[in-house]
């Protein structure tokens, strides 16, 4: 685990709930108490109605591929052995769009609007990354 060579998320007061959720294999988002919007990235105010109150909503982990790319260039040495790999924006069924990787299939099998489900990649003792694989 200690030889993990890729960038890790920088935890702060806003995103800690999300990354601690991932460690527990839960996708935890803020849901606006006033209008119901499930939002990402985390924020103090609801971007739709500006209310400040929110509760924690655990997403199902199901979603669709909104868009994706296939990286053929390693912009960081940690990814050189992964090429080609897929970076995608996944639209979760609850609403939020998250940037992630599509795994569990060949890059040429990924399509927009494809159904995907979260899979957990435990990269260090404290950090687990939510990635997605075809259903």
């Amino acid at each position, binding site marked *: 685990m200690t030889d993990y060579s*890729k*960038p*890790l*998320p*920088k935890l702060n007061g806003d*995103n800690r709930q999300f990354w601690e959720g991932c460690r527990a294999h839960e996708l935890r988002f803020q849901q606006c108490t006033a209008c119901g919007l499930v939002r*990402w*990235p985390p924020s103090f105010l609801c971007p739709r109605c500006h209310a400040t109150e929110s509760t924690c909503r655990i997403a199902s982990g199901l979603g669709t591929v*909104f*868009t*994706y*790319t*296939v*990286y*053929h*260039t390693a*912009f*960081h040495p*940690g*990814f050189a052995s*992964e090429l*080609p*790999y897929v*970076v995608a*924006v996944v639209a979760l069924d609850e609403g939020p*769009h*998250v*940037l*992630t*990787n599509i795994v569990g299939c060949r*890059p040429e099998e990924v399509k*927009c*609007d494809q159904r995907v489900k979260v899979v957990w990649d435990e990269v260090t003792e404290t950090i687990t*990354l939510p*990635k997605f694989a075809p259903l």
Partner: protein
Amino acid sequence: MLESGLCNYVLISYGHSALSSDSMMQMLTDLSGDDAVFGHFGATGGYALAARRAMHTFGTGPETWKQIAMGQRQWADLNPQAVMHGKTMSSEDYDHSRWVVEPLRLLDNCLITDGGRAIVVTSLERARDLKQPPVVILGMGQHDQPAEIGQALTMDGPTGAKKAGEAALAMAGITLNDVDACQLYDCFTYTVEITLQDYGFFGPGEGKDWFQGGTIAPGGRMPVNTSGGQLSEAYFMGLTPLAEAAMQIMGRCGRRQLGPATGTREPRIVLCSDNGGILQSHSCIILGRS
């Protein structure tokens, strides 16, 4: 500031040792934030996400982008200052160009360049006494769709270009039919397509036909990025297109000069764009003869 007398001249300049240092790539990597966790870096990846979405929603793709890359390269071949001067690009060259971040190939990417550009803005009264014929600002517009690429819903349009373009045309009191040429921010080939599409030159997905037959190239009916642009001349942010527009209107462009010599319309009105982030901010400026 000029009209109120606070100043007499404004110098707009840009210079960067982007090629001989790693500062451009470092800046783009730093902007990635936690997206880097998933191996998402810089500008090519972000525009590749946008381009892929556009392929899905309105059926664009490499056949359209190739026309942009090749058309601008033809202009670069008429510009001795262009980095890609003398390096012609065939259809096969484009097709065999390596993927950087799919669906964008190397030849869909702009250059990274050492150098700079500068423009002096002053009053029309003062400009009339200067060495070069004056170029006037006919209209300006600005509009943003500021969501990050991970949350953006307008990566396949309409980007900020739609409202920015409408505002600039309205201020100038003209329509697209009055535009003789465009100098656009062209960080990637797809940026040129979505910008022209959002300005209203063609409908979603119609670019595939619109660009065919050298529309934007020398001899074409709507020349675009006549220096070669950021794809084939040099990358100086928004000053690559803006400086070229001013120089074309002044008539200082040598072999690539718009008009009879290149089989194009006289550059009386030139529409320019700039955009920032991943299609997140947009400026449109229309320049013309005084």
